[in-house]
Every structure is written in structure tokens, then in C-alpha cells.
């Protein structure tokens, strides 16, 4: 078979697959997340104003569509006259960075320990790992994070590490459960009779069959991490000023909520929309990653 051709047909297949499995919510989630990611990457070039510049004369300008609003500040300004839209765009950087990196850390630990624990289920190693997981899950994550933040200096790196290192337990438990069921399936037994090594079985049989539910949970984990980051920044324990995050913007607007509602409302909306969009994306990913859900694949494609 021509290598180049098969490569092309593969791309074509993937594309048609995406088309088949597109659900309205999935598409909304995918597009929204893409926009937020692009916004975060290109923030310095697309912001209408410098988000850090304080201008007391422009303070508490309402959004453009309200009396007294100005079209130069579409979403208004905050209590020290900074442009809210520009700050929202910059804030997405921290949120995504924290969300993605902390889940990468937690997911890597969780996947690794879950694979070991599940594959060697019932052994001492498994027991030890699961007791640690139980202990981790028994303590509320936010509380654990709070303690850790107080012990170490608050900041972006601390935040990522702390969220990552406190939320791996749920991935371990999920992966372990999946591994326990997959390893009893006959195709694993069959590989064993062939003399496959443990590494071969884990790599070729276990991981591919565990990965899809893992990715779904990890995606939703990003949303949770963003919420945790926002909560901590709201409490002043997260990312420190002058770095901008949606959580600290919420905090800024807290005192003005009765008179200037827009300061707190827009970052709140940004958090909600991002978390929802990521959740939709996660659900959609699960559908795509399941080969059984592929429709109309029975025709010959030669």
C-alpha cells in the first residue's frame, strides 16, 4: 500500500469521523475553548488597552451599552480605571496555564500509580497506593491547597504544583478501576498465552483501553482546577498582583457589586463559560475516542 496515500486517507477518515460525531454542544464547547486558547496565546496583541495602566479619571466606567458608558471601554473599567475586557483577556492566560499544567501533573501521577495499582491488583503495592489515595480523598482538596499555600509562598508556580500534587488521587482511583476490568478481558489473557511481557500488555492492551475515560476525566479536571485557582485568587492566596486572574478580578469587584456590578460579573461569566465549554468538550471527546461509536464504518474503503 502506498504510504503517502494511506496517510492522506487517514486524515480524511479522521475528518469524516469528526463530522459524524459532531453534536451541537460538542461543537459549542470545542469552538469556545479554541477561542479562549487563542485569546490566551495572543493576549498582548489583541488587548484594546494596557490592562495594567491605572487611570483614576476613568474609574468605574460602565459597559458601552449603558448610560455613561464609552465605546473605548466595551466592558467598562474597574475601581482604579483599568479596562475590564483587556484584563479578562490577560486573565485567561493564568486560568488556562494553571488548569492545563496542574492536570498534566496530577494526570501523570494518577495514570502511573493507577496502572501499577490496577495491574498488580491485590498485592501489597496496590494496597499501599490505595490507602494513600483514600487518605488524599478524605481531605477536601481546597483545604489541603489552602494549607500548602500558607506554608509555601503564594504564586503561579506554587499554585500549579499544589493543585497538581493534591488532585491526583481521583485519577489513580479511576485508572485503577478501569485497569482491573480491562486486564480480565480475554484479549489480555490471549496476549499472556502468547508470552507477551507485562510492559507489552500494559502498553498495547491496557493503556489504549483506559485512555479514553482518563482523557474525559482529565478534561473535566482542567475545569475543576480553574475553579480552584479562581477560588484561591479570590481569597488572595492564588496568583499575586500585578498578575491578573479572573479570581482576583472577582475579588476586586466584590466591594462594588451593588453600584458597579460589571467589575465582578464579567470575570464570573468568564469562569462559568470556560468551565462549561471544557466540560462539553470532555463529553464530546469521550464519544470521539470510542471506536464503537464510529458510524457507517462497515463499507469497504479500498
Amino acid at each position, binding site marked *: *500500500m502506498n504510504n503517502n496515500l494511506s496517510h492522506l486517507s487517514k486524515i480524511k477518515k479522521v475528518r469524516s469521523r469528526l463530522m459524524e460525531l459532531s453534536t451541537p454542544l460538542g461543537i459549542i464547547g470545542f469552538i469556545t475553548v479554541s477561542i479562549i486558547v487563542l485569546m490566551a496565546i495572543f493576549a498582548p496583541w489583541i488587548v484594546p488597552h494596557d490592562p495594567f495602566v491605572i487611570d483614576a479619571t476613568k474609574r468605574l466606567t460602565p459597559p458601552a451599552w449603558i448610560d455613561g458608558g464609552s465605546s473605548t471601554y466595551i466592558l467598562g473599567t474597574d475601581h482604579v480605571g483599568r479596562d475590564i475586557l483587556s484584563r479578562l483577556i490577560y486573565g485567561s492566560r493564568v486560568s488556562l496555564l494553571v488548569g492545563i499544567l496542574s492536570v498534566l501533573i496530577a494526570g501523570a501521577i494518577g495514570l502511573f500509580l493507577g496502572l501499577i495499582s490496577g495491574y498488580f491488583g491485590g498485592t501489597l503495592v496496590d494496597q499501599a497506593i490505595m490507602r494513600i489515595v483514600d487518605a488524599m480523598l478524605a481531605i477536601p482538596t481546597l483545604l489541603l491547597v489552602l494549607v500548602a499555600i500558607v506554608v509555601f509562598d503564594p504564586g503561579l508556580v506554587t499554585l500549579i504544583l499544589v493543585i497538581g500534587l493534591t488532585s491526583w488521587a481521583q485519577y489513580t482511583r479511576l485508572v485503577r478501576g478501569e485497569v482491573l476490568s480491562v486486564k480480565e478481558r*480475554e484479549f489480555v489473557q490471549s496476549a499472556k498465552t*502468547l508470552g507477551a511481557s507485562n510492559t507489552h500488555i500494559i502498553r498495547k492492551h491496557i493503556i*489504549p483501553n483506559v485512555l479514553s475515560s482518563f482523557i474525559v476525566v482529565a478534561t473535566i479536571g482542567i475545569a475543576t482546577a480553574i475553579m480552584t485557582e479562581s477560588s484561591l485568587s479570590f481569597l488572595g492566596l492564588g496568583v499575586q498582583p500585578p498578575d491578573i486572574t479572573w479570581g482576583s478580578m472577582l475579588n476586586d469587584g466584590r466591594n462594588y457589586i451593588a453600584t458597579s456590578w460589571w467589575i465582578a460579573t464579567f470575570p464570573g461569566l468568564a469562569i462559568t463559560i470556560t468551565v462549561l465549554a471544557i466540560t462539553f468538550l470532555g463529553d464530546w471527546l469521550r464519544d470521539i475516542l470510542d471506536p464503537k461509536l464510529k458510524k457507517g464504518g462497515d463499507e469497504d474503503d479500498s
Partner: protein
Amino acid sequence: MSNEDALLKVTDLKKHFPLPRKKKKQEQAYVKAVDGVNFYINAGETLGIVGESGSGKSTVAKLIMQLLQPTDGQVVFHGNDVFTQSKKDRKQTQKKLQMVFQDPYGSLNPRMTAKEIVTEPLLIHEKLSKKELELRALGLLEEVGLGMQHLNRYPHQFSGGQRQRLSIARAIALKPDLIVCDEAVSALDVSIQAQILNLLKQLQKNYGIAFIFIAHGLPAVKHISDRIAIMYAGKIVEIADKEEIFKNPKHPYTKALLNAVPPSHPRLRKEKTLVQGETPSFDITTSGCPFYNRCMNAKEDCKTNAPELIEHEKHHEYACHYPEQASNREN
């Protein structure tokens, strides 16, 4: 047991599973899934193993494939005991001894393409280039009646029969000497069963592969077997050439199995000696014949004195004190 240079020889194989103890002081009870099984198989021959659910036939298959460790006994393949052999011999055994599983849905990894599935044994045991693997995959698929258009498909895109063909292709990839088929056709339609059986026969003719063919009814093994062993409650109760089993069944259980096969025409229906009741519970240890409570020929001494599997006639062994008389030869 005869035949010293058999391909595979099973000697006094036992597998007892411990039962959970209800009280601390209670004596450990066991399920005797396989309890002293002896048989051999020659190169290029097919041995059918028949028995009802719980008779231990699948456990025998798993023991032969070393998926379970035996409580006692030996499985000698090519002169090596598979449980105690050296690492190097084990590698060789894994190549030459293959298995086809019952469930065509569970035995194939849903995330592997047909090409990956059938070349997995090659990947593990031989170092081949990508090009060679692709060629071998195509060859294997054609061997089992599939084609090039199937190479990159996933298991869910195949029918049950096609999946079982894939399993067979994977099993023959390393040119094995013996394939254990654990109810390999039970999950398929009768028409598809015949196709798969014919495929196996063809492969046997071409490559001289021996088969251990496990099934829960006699019709499936009648077509393919040279010899048939009947299992009951973890033991072989009768083993003989196929013709002997069908024409001259000695053990009452074998006869009951034969009578359980529906005749091809309703008017052909004759006496019905179906077995009543269920397989005895394994944790009750009787000193007598395991079939005692369901047997029509049972007499008082069957209850206390278990019959041994003895070669009463040439190539015909059975374990019964009061065997059936050769009456239904017209069958």
C-alpha cells in the same frame, strides 16, 4: 496411558480452588474443578473434550495454556513440562502452543486493527520490519478467508464469524503445533459454526496442526474430532475414538449426552434417557462415583467405590462399574 512420544501429554492434572472459609476454625474446603485428568494428543490429531458447564473443561484449557497454576500434575508438551520448563523452552512453548477463545467479542482488543491483532504474536516473538509485518498480516488474513480490505478495520466492524477467523489467524501466525480451541464455535450461528470448523480442518490438513477442541455438546465435535473425551465433575469418564463414542458408548453419561442431541426428524425420536438434576456440588467429597446420584445404572457399590478410568477395549477407556451394553448400534 500409552503413547510415549505424544505431542502433548497430560498426567494426573488437578486444580483445586480454595473456597472462602465461613469461620476461622473451619477446615479449608476446595472446589475440585479438575481432579486427576489424564490424556494425550498426537501431532496432527484432533481431540474433542465434551462436558456440561462446570465439568472443568475450560479449566483444563487454561491449565494447558499456563493461565492457571495446577494444584498437582503435569502437562508435557514436546517433552517439556510446561510448568517447570526453562525460560528458553517456555518461549518455544508459547510459540508452538496457541489458543482460540470462546468469545469472539472479548478476545480481540477493540482498539487494535485486524493487522495489529494478527501480527501481535510476530511482534512478540520475531523481529520483523514494518513491510514484512504487513505482508505477513495479509497472508494470514487470506489464510482464514479474509482479505486486504480488512487490514485496517477494527473488531467491531466484523461479524462474529469473521472475528473468530481473526482469532484463528492470530493463533496460526507462529505456525503452532497445537491449538486449544475453548468453545471456539459455541457463540456462533450453526451455519457459521460449520464454516469455522471447515476452516480449522483445512488448516489441519495444510499444516498438520493438532487441535484440542472443547465443546459442551457432541454435535460440534463430531465433525472435527478424531478422538473424544467426555468430562464430568472434573474427571474424564470416557475417552475413545470418535466412531466408538458414537456407536458404542459405555458410560451412562456419554449415552445420555448422545440422547440429548435432537434427531434430524421428529419420527426418529426414540427412547429419552436424559439426565436429571445438576452437577454435584464440588465441595461435597464423595468416595463413590461422581455420577452416582444421576445415573440410571447405579448400584449400591457405586456409592462408595469410585470407578477408575481403565482401558477396557483397545483405545477405549471408561470409568464405570456397570457400563452400557452395546445395544443402540443403529444410532
